[in-house]
């Protein structure tokens, strides 16, 4: 008798479980149908007398309920291995770039999350370091799944070969024509040479002197230092107040003060000023900056910066190019390239190696 009661109770429980199971299945089917038909929105809403928003809201609530039931965590029951479905493949994981939803970090740089950005937004030291091995990880994207490549009138070639992963080649050698751009004839015909090295100031004099001597020791870059000496151009580290507004984070600038006496000695004379925020950067990087700003001085001498047909791309290209050619000579001795200026110089150098066209295109995106 007792056994009979137990058996009846078991049957009743099974029936109840069966009803619950079918109710859950029905609910899941409704959710699936709503999700599937959701985009048809209005017609679906008309059919069942609900707006699209309420359908979506209902779906969300039901999904939440079912997912909570699935996880069993609310009841403190850990999901057993094999009971839960395999996670759906996350499409976004194929994309190494995080486009939104948090601070952007460069892929594969080893930059620790959330660090490396200073108050002025300047990069952490190791983000663009110069380890001997290329850090680019092989792509996990499926073949042909390049970014933004859909929806255009192109067709795969018959012999299309997939590229499931990518290996970066080594840095190529400098090409022919990767040479210093010399200045033209000086337009300052009445400006008498003073032949004086004019590194001044109370701080960073030794660093500037070392950088100046490095440039002066290398031909043809010494044409710049020769011009600076000939005209006695003042070179110094300024104060923090000297670097504000458009020059706020600049490492240095070439300042033209007056041209009224042209073509005679300009009064006051132009000068080169360095930012004290970089007092502890490397001699090579400061020297590369001297080449960049010194090229602007040479453009002042040969009149390029006064030529109305010259664009900002023309003006900046010559300075970037000369600094890149100089960096090619000194980057090995500057290695490891772990300062802000070294990383900047290295980037300009690599772009210049891509070619004149690529460097000018970069300058257009940065400066215009």
């Amino acid at each position, binding site marked *: 008798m007792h056994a009979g009661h137990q058996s009846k109770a078991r049957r009743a429980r099974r029936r109840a479980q069966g009803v619950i199971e079918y109710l859950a*299945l029905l609910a899941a089917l409704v*959710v*699936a149908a709503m*999700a*599937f*038909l*959701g*985009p*048809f*929105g209005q017609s679906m809403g008309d059919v069942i007398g609900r707006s*699209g928003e309420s359908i979506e809201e209902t779906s969300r609530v039901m999904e939440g309920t079912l997912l909570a039931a*699935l996880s069993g965590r609310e009841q403190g029951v850990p999901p057993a291995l094999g*009971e*839960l*479905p395999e996670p*759906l493949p996350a499409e976004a994981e194929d994309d*190494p770039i995080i*486009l939104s939803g948090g601070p952007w970090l460069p892929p*594969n740089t080893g930059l620790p999350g959330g660090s490396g950005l200073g108050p002025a937004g300047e990069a952490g030291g190791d*983000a*663009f370091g110069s*380890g001997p091995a*290329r850090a680019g990880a092989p792509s996990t*994207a499926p*073949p042909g*799944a*390049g*970014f933004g*490549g859909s*929806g*255009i009138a*192109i067709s*795969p*070639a018959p012999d*299309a070969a997939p*590229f499931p992963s990518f290996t*970066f080649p*080594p*840095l*190529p050698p400098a*090409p022919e*024509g990767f040479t210093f751009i010399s200045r033209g004839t000086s337009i300052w015909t009445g400006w008498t040479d003073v032949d004086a090295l004019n590194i001044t100031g109370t701080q960073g004099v030794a660093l500037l002197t070392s950088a100046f001597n490095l440039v002066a020791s290398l031909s043809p870059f010494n044409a710049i230092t020769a011009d600076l000496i000939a005209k006695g151009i003042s070179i110094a580290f300024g104060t923090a107040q000297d670097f504000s507004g*458009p020059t706020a*984070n*600049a490492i240095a600038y070439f300042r033209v003060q007056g041209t009224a006496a042209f073509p005679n000695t300009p009064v006051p004379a132009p000068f080169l000023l360095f930012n004290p925020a*970089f007092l502890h950067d490397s001699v090579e990087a400061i020297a590369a900056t001297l080449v960049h700003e010194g090229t602007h001085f040479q453009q002042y001498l040969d009149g390029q910066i006064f030529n109305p047909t010259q664009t900002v*791309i023309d003006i900046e290209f010559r300075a970037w190019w000369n600094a890149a050619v100089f960096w090619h000579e000194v980057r090995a001795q500057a290695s490891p390239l772990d300062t*802000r200026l070294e990383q*900047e110089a290295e*980037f300009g150098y690599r*772009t210049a*190696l891509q*070619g*004149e*066209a690529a460097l*000018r*295109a970069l300058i*257009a*995106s*940065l400066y215009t």
Partner: protein
Amino acid sequence: MGRTGCRMRGVAAGVLALAGWASPARASEHDAAPQERGAPIAQTQEQSESAMSTEPSYESYAGDDLGRPVRFQYPSQWTVQFDAGQIQAYRQLLILGPRNAEETFRAQLVVRSSPTKEAGGRFSGPGELIANLTGTVPEGASADEGSARDIADTPARDITLSYVIPPMHKTGLKSLPIPVRQRTVVLQRGSELVELVYSADAREYERHAGAFDRLLGTLQFP
């Protein structure tokens, strides 16, 4: 709950997975003609309105600045600048778009023509050009090379690079790191190498990707 619970969870999860798979697929179909079908679901409506408001108008470039006739379409609000090499042999059209939100980088399309090595240029073909490009990107870059494809009836190679421009400490520039995504399509026509480039702040890359698709799809060498 034992096996019954397990079965319930499995069935329900499968149905949900089906729903999750089906929903975006249907949404994509719907996006193709949002006005005709109506867009009662808020998210879809926003996407449709956004797509409509950012869809640029296009105009055609037809000229021989590259040393041969070329035609393509580009966003009418963008500006075209011609540029020719003074050190290296090339001609290019820089098509400059809007600056990014941080005001550090301008989106850009490039149509560039250069001679092959045999004709006095640097590279013997697209393979060498891409090797040079990928060999010089900054440390930490990533790359995705798509399948070979035809552009303007010519086989082309297609590579997308993602890298970071380190903060630039130059007058007039904000010293902020700039994540860049750059897609380059290279094809060879006789002794000419043609590079088609789209570069933008990676965070805003998709915003103008359609403009590059349009350029690729309309490019002609008549």
